[in-house]
């Protein structure tokens, strides 16, 4: 069997100061690497020139240069596909220097144990601006966790787990040779972990594939606050976000074994330092990790700084009285925060209990005839007739106030043809529905509707239980119909206020006639308005005290002359619910028996209602006419009668229905 191939990838980001040393490290290996890749992340200092000089000297070196600073993860994503070797060393110029014997000593164990996922060596650190290295295992307090002297050449996954229970495994990600297959098997470097992604990958690979150990120092790790990882950890928010991302990853099913390993070997969290405790504490679902880590951390802290109570107190008291006061204040603040959190938690528990209680009560209601499900379908554009059908549908529903009516609106066919704004506005002003759903997906609608229990089930002949809003429906306007209309159009305070203010300012002392004309598919009434305008003009010449307010949409006033005889209220900021309120409040109504017409008739407005779906009839006493297809002249002739009766005979129009309930009563 031939020797395994290995690639070294060096990452550089404005490290002019260290890059030459790092290049010497990777090029000066006593066992040369088969592939050398250097990637520069848009450096603006002289490091690029240094790398280019090195690349010119070493033919095996591939130099990649990012046009701008893309970050470590993007650079990794760019460089890794170029690696063809079986083993990989990922290092960076700001952090590490490979000693000449690195590959010579690290590769033979891997060749002897091809099942191993990685090989790591003892960790030595070079403090900032110093050249001599310090072995971590010789450092007081942390040495016992990092000692690799007693480790065998190959540690199986089980051995790794056993060791980690006892002490922290000092895998420095920049001092590691990774098996490429193992890296691919775990899905590569998770980008959300930023500077910790390589450490995390090492832990995962070691746990799943085992690791080879070289007890000698093969790599020098530099401590420098300008390094990428140190910069990240120096930013508390970024550091906390990264830890939260790690916890999110550990919550995923594919990392279940690693979560277990972190739980059993909480020392794995120690590179994240104290912020890890803070983040874990605030995520209740991660308390299974928090508790072991807090115990581990306390034990380590105690080992590091044995507690000498009397001496410590005396010293603090004498030297740091101010600090003690500040500390106490911080302690009290922290306690206050904890108490607030606890209160929050108590409230959460209370809310949970309330939620369960509500669910049970609702379930009981549904079981005992309090809830009724009705389904409306829309298949095409929401025209004036569809909007009217929405009101007509509510009129035929039972008026039993004890029933909760749950409306379900199914959008079928091409959902891009269905503009819901007017239906939503009507649903908002409706007091019929306790709640409603909108389904854009037939499959979801069928499934969800099948599992909603409701009794009594509507009888099969109850056509309102499944209502096609796109079909024309006649409107029954008996006593029940009028009551249904009052339920379908709740009095909205906002709309009423808008209408009142408008009429007082725009049409004081006028006889106000609400006008609703046929609309096109997009809801604009410009075409019909063009036909009506000359007739309205003539009418106003004879009866100047009448003011017409058009309730439909029209195109902007910049594009044509403002119609002098009509106030297009929708162009003046009226929404659909405001226009409904105007239909209810006007002195008379003329136009289609659409949603506005129904609102007007529900409010007992006199006038002319055009309804092609039902027969012609008149109620002269109430000054109401229903006509199938009248001309504008006919309509205005009848309106003249209304005006004469209501205005010239001294009988003012009846007052608007009193506002009895707020919409909150819905």
């Amino acid at each position, binding site marked *: 069997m031939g020797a395994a191939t290995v690639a070294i990838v060096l990452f550089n980001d404005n490290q002019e100061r260290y890059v030459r040393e790092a290049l010497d490290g990777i090029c000066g290996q006593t066992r040369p690497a088969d592939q050398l890749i250097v990637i520069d992340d848009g450096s603006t200092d002289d490091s690029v020139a240094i790398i280019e000089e090195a690349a010119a000297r070493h033919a095996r070196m591939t130099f990649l240069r990012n046009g701008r600073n893309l970050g470590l993860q993007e650079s990794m994503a760019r460089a890794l596909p170029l690696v063809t070797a079986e083993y990989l060393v990922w290092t960076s110029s700001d952090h590490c220097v490979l000693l000449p014997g690195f590959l010579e000593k690290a590769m033979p164990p891997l060749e002897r144990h091809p099942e191993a996922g990685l090989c790591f060596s003892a960790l030595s650190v070079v403090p900032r601006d110093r050249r001599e290295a310090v072995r971590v295992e010789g450092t007081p307090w942390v040495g016992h966790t990092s000692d690799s002297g007693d480790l065998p050449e190959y540690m199986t996954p089980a051995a790794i787990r056993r060791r980690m229970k006892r002490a922290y495994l000092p895998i420095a990600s920049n001092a590691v040779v990774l098996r490429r297959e193992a890296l691919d098997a775990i899905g590569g470097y998770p980008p959300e972990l930023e500077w910790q992604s390589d450490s995390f990958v090492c832990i995962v690979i070691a746990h799943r594939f085992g690791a080879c150990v070289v007890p000698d120092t093969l790599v020098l790790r530099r401590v420098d606050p300008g390094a990428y990882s140190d910069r990240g950890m120096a930013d508390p928010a970024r550091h906390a976000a990264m830890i939260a991302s790690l916890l999110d990853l550990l919550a995923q099913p594919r990392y279940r074994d690693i979560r277990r390993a972190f739980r059993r070997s909480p020392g794995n969290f120690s590179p994240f330092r104290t912020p890890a405790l803070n983040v874990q504490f605030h995520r209740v679902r991660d308390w299974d990790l928090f508790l072991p880590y807090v115990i581990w951390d306390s034990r380590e802290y105690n080992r590091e700084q044995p507690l000498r109570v009397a001496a410590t107190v005396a010293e603090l008291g004498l030297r740091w009285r101010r600090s003690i006061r500040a500390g106490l204040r911080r302690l009290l603040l922290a306690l206050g925060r904890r108490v607030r959190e606890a209160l929050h938690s108590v409230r959460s528990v209370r*809310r949970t209990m309330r939620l369960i209680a509500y669910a049970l*009560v609702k379930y009981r209601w549904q079981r005992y005839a309090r809830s009724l499900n009705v389904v409306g379908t829309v298949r095409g554009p929401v025209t004036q007739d569809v909007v009217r059908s929405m009101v007509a549908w509510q009129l035929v529903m039972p008026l039993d106030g004890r029933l909760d009516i749950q409306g379900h609106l199914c959008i079928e066919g091409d959902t891009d043809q269905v503009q819901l704004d007017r239906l939503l506005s009507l649903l908002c002003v409706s007091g019929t529905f306790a709640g409603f759903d909108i389904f854009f997906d037939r499959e979801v609608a069928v499934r969800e509707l099948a599992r909603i229990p409701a009794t009594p089930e509507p009888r099969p002949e109850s056509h309102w239980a499944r209502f096609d809003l796109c079909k024309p429906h006649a409107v029954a306007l008996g006593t029940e119909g009028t009551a249904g209309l009052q339920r379908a159009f709740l009095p909205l305070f906002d709309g009423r206020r808008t209408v009142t203010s408008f009429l007082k300012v725009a049409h004081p002392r006028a006889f106000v006639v609400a006008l609703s004309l046929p609309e096109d598919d997009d809801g604009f009434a410009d075409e019909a308005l063009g036909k009506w305008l000359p007739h309205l003009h003539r009418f106003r010449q004879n009866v100047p005290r009448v003011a017409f307010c058009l309730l439909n949409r029209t195109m902007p006033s910049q594009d044509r002359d403002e119609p002098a005889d009509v106030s297009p209220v929708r162009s003046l900021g009226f929404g659909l619910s405001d226009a409904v309120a105007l239909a209810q409040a006007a002195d008379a109504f003329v136009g289609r028996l659409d949603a506005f017409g129904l609102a007007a008739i529900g409010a007992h407005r006199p006038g002319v209602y055009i309804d092609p779906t039902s027969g012609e009839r008149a109620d002269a006493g109430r000054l109401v006419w229903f006509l199938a297809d009248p001309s504008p002249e006919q309509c205005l002739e009848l309106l003249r009668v209304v005006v004469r009766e209501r205005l010239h005979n001294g009988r003012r129009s009846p007052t608007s229905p009193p506002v009895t309930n707020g919409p909150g009563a819905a």
Partner: protein
Amino acid sequence: MKRVANAVLDLASLIRGASRGQFVGVIDFSYQHYALGDLLTSQVNLACLAVEHGCRGLDLYVIVDPAAPAARAQPFITPDNYLTHLDNVFPALLVSPLLRSIRLIRDPLTAGLSLLSLIASRVPMWPPVFDHLRRRMTYPLDHRIINRFHRAHGYVPTLGAPRGYAGWARRFIQQHYAGRFLVCINPRQSRLTHTPAVTHRDAPLAEWYEFLRVVGRRYPDVHFFMLGGFAEWEHTLLTLDNVSIPRTMGLTLAHELALLVASSLFMGTSSGFATMATFSGVPYVITYIEPLFAKYAGVEPNAARYPFAGANQYLVWRREDARLLLRYFQRIYHEPGAAPGEGPSPMRIAPARP
């Protein structure tokens, strides 16, 4: 006994009946805000999380308790007027390409049963259950989830025109504004509304008028749509021939969002419409962003663009003036790829433009 057992089993099956394949967004207005920008950011958060969970559809549970319809931060929304506010913002819930259903729940009992069903069925939801129970939502909504998604996948889900309005916008533009370079504008004017808030973020209108007049003189093919509530503009705009105001046609927020997606450019102060532009792939210039927002957006103050933004999507951190607006307008107008508004692209989840 048997009846009780049956009832318990029945309840259990009902509670555990929620579909595992769904992703649920809970918009509970008792602690979330009736605010366009927040709702749109929520939609993008939901889309990111749904994609990450491998869910194909998004179901929105909109919970409004008529007795307590709004968060403490919006005391002007009361049981007597919440329906108006709900009606106003509802179209913002229709912009997600993954949307499958919306449920408006107006009584706490139904909300309780629905949420319990979701929790028991372990359906993934946002906000997470514990955050929801604690009524915890930090405002302004940050871009943490979105940036994380972008780092992992290289794109962010884009928002489309509200469901049902893409075709309308296409027809409307072809009918009335064919061949025009359409620019949607939204100079924030909270001081003109019923409930003024944070008025120091309002735009200098005089500078905008100057900008609109200059563009009107030099670029006759350019037409502007002024977006925003009916109260949020001055009558001066009605005198400008190159400006149309959708609200004066009786159109609603749904139509405005569809026009924004279909337009060639958005220019405006940092606000809800700016959020729509941010996540819809339209070229944009967003002005006067508060430096405080930088940390929530995950960018440095004075950053030229968001991490997921395209080349012609600009952030401006200082208060705009006519020259600045004109400079950015010209930069985008003269770009080779700049084209007249021809209607929105179909709704999709797609990579942001490089």
